[in-house]
């Protein structure tokens, strides 16, 4: 059990002169789950890409089973026995599960004709799927699988390579609670058979359940490795951010103002008969499993999806039809779930994005003044502490947290009264999360109203004045801040 399978010695790496990893030392033991945590930009992904042969290291050595190895390509890593499951899967959607598992090394039936032995593929794939507890036909197209099942196909692919080290990059980010539990079972099963798993995660709650050893990275350096029994969540956070976060969810509660938003029997594609309301100075949460209709409700209120039944009241005025132009004119803002595709134009500058929503109001004559634009954008960049050398930097070059701040800045700049936050902290590191919570508190402090959607229950309970729970497109319960507990909310959601 204590045998070291992979040793990382003094690895360094820099991109265009900026050091990303400095002198990393780490030991992965045989048959352990080794969790690596760290804020975004701490260097976790880079390190994993070096181990799996995607990037080349600048300095340092790798030892596999005690012998030095040169891993200079993905193929080499695979042949040694190291495979990686990326956050974005490497699957061909229009091929079958079996074809994907054997992609690039299809067994040959006849050496003369080079025909592929599909029977073998089917048989072996079926065995692997069964081993993983999946009742799936290997001839199913990957296109027809859910996210969790696709991930299992990736695992099967890794098993098929007889990998000794399996790297998983945020495997649970898109999984439901149930799917996560299943994944953990499989991880434990693999561990018992001597496979080492390197597991990267943002979800500190999970780590306790699954980890044997924990390594914390910060700013490209190893802060420390410790056994999981010795670590508390607070301690991990402290190691990650290098400072103490006393109360992540810093809220001052205010007396609520008048009602600004109400839905009346609202119904559309994935939900029906939704009645919720929102007052000035409060944060209202929407909780529910993925697919319960939370995002759809947000998009319908904002006018991106059409209202099919019922109506939306904004500042007491009834609307049976809504579109995004009207919503923005009514000072509603949506911070969407998918930051890169729906929140910010990542190919454009911070300045462009911050000023985007306020443009027609800021420049009534329709002619843009670069001076005003710069000063307004810079003001919000300062105010929200967006970490970038200048407002002319492209958003795609920022970290997730800073990208999210740009999206929020866009709506603050447009002076929105009603803000809808859909999973505002997903994939964002702990430090930036706290900043976003602070911004939200500040906004309601100024009398704005916030509708917040989140899968992270502690966050929801910590931030919200009231929480609505949703199940299958219907509101099942409403809890006040004092009533809400994780158990009650979960019970109302499933």
């Amino acid at each position, binding site marked *: 059990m204590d045998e070291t399978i992979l040793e990382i010695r003094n690895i360094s790496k820099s991109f*265009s002169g900026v050091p990303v990893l400095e002198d990393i030392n780490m030991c992965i033991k045989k048959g352990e789950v080794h969790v690596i945590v760290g804020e975004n930009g701490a260097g976790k992904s880079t390190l994993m890409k070096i181990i799996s042969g995607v990037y080349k290291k600048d300095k340092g050595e790798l030892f596999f089973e005690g012998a030095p190895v040169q891993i200079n390509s993905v193929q080499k890593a695979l042949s040694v026995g190291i495979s990686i499951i990326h956050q974005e899967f490497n699957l061909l959607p229009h091929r079958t599960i079996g074809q994907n598992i054997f992609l690039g090394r299809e067994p040959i039936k006849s050496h003369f004709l080079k025909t592929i032995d599909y029977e073998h593929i089917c048989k072996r794939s079926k065995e692997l799927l069964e081993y993983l507890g999946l009742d799936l036909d290997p001839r199913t197209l990957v296109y027809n699988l859910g996210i969790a099942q696709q991930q299992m196909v990736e695992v099967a692919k890794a098993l098929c390579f007889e990998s000794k080290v399996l790297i998983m990059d945020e495997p649970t980010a898109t999984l439901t609670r149930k799917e996560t539990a299943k994944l953990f079972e499989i991880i434990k099963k693999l561990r018992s058979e001597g496979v080492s798993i390197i597991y990267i995660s943002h979800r500190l709650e999970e780590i306790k359940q699954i980890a044997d050893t924990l390594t914390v990275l910060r700013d490209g350096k190893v802060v420390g490795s410790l056994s999981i029994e010795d670590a508390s969540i607070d301690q991990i956070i402290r190691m990650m951010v290098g400072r103490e976060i006393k109360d992540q969810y810093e809220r001052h509660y205010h007396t609520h103002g008048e009602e600004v938003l109400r839905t009346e029997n609202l119904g559309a594609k994935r939900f029906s008969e939704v009645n919720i309301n929102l007052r000035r100075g409060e944060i209202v949460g929407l909780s529910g499993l993925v697919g319960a209709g939370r995002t759809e409700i947000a998009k319908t209120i*904002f006018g*991106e999806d059409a209202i099919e039944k019922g109506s939306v009241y904004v500042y007491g005025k009834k609307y049976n039809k809504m579109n*995004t*132009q009207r*919503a*923005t*004119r009514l000072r509603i803002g*949506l911070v*969407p779930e998918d930051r890169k*595709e*729906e*929140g*910010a*134009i*990542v*190919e*454009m500058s911070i300045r*462009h994005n911050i000023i*985007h*929503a306020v*443009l*027609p109001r800021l*420049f009534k004559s*329709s*002619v*843009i003044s670069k001076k005003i634009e710069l000063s307004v954008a810079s003001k919000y960049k300062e105010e929200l502490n967006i970490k970038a050398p200048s407002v002319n930097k492209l958003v795609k070059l920022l970290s997730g947290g800073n990208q999210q701040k740009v999206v929020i800045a*866009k709506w603050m700049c447009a002076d929105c009264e009603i803000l809808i936050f859909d999973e505002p902290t997903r994939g964002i590191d702990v430090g930036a999360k706290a900043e976003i919570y602070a911004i939200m508190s500040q906004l309601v402090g100024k009398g704005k109203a916030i509708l917040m959607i989140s899968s992270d229950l502690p966050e929801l309970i910590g931030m919200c004045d009231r929480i609505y729970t949703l199940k299958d497109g219907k509101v099942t319960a409403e809890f006040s801040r004092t009533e809400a507990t994780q158990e009650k909310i979960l019970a109302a959601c499933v």
Partner: protein
Amino acid sequence: MKRIAGFALNYYKIILLFAILSVSSSVTQDPLQNIKNMIMIQAPFVMIYSFGMTLAVITGGLDLSLGSVAAFSTCAAAFLIIKDQIFLGIAVCLLIGAGLGLLNGLLITKAKVNPFIATYGMDWVIRGAVYIMMSGAMIYHFSNDFKIIADGSFLGISNLVYISVAILLILMFVFQKTVFGRNVYSTGANTKVSRLTGVNTDLLIIIVYMISGVLASTSGLLYVARLDCAEAFLGKNFGLQALAATLIGGTSLQGGKGGVGNTVIGVLIMVFLMNCLNVLKVSTLWQDAVFGLVIVVSALLEMAKQRYANYLQL
């Protein structure tokens, strides 16, 4: 070395322009007349309809119907212009251009047809319509009052130059300096985000295709005035030439990048290169190949420019 590479990547188009120009000038006996031909006559035509393509490409689409729009609108207008209803004719021509652009825009935004398919399909439809309208006839011998638009000059500079520069300046102002222009770029870069920021993206795209249609009609009108003949096959290669000029200029098909200023350079490279091959007495058979090569190489250089932007401190 780094500096030189950076400089070369940044200014390679200008360098290329001068290189081509010096080659063609060195072999002709009358280089001034040659340059005058290219800049005052050949380039303005191509430029105006290429601007239309560039704007469509900025929205993330493209407009392959430029040529047929030019033919249809000018042929319809020619019936009036030949009767000396010049202003009415011009107005009708531009209105038809805008109308056909509107149709393209509606197909793309409301019917959600892919821009390539929409405008390519429309190209056939409109071309068919103009064949039916003209049924083999041509309209020619317009009055001098009309022909002067393209034939005349002021202070020794062709009217074509004034017209194309005026259009260029207006477009640059609208697309660089106004809220409308900014929103067009945002919509091109990411339509969804723009819509979710409260921009009426459908309307913007429709307006851009209308502008594109008007530009196509304008260049068509200038051709008719210059060549003194309105005919159904005008502009059969407008669409692809304009796309080439746009791409060589560096406006990316992804949308939200580039601009009409880039396209000026693209058009000049194209016109200068064609002329250079002609005066070098290169066989026509080779010209298409060279031309295609320039498109591919400029795309590669644009990619290199992006990839090494950081390294070369561009």
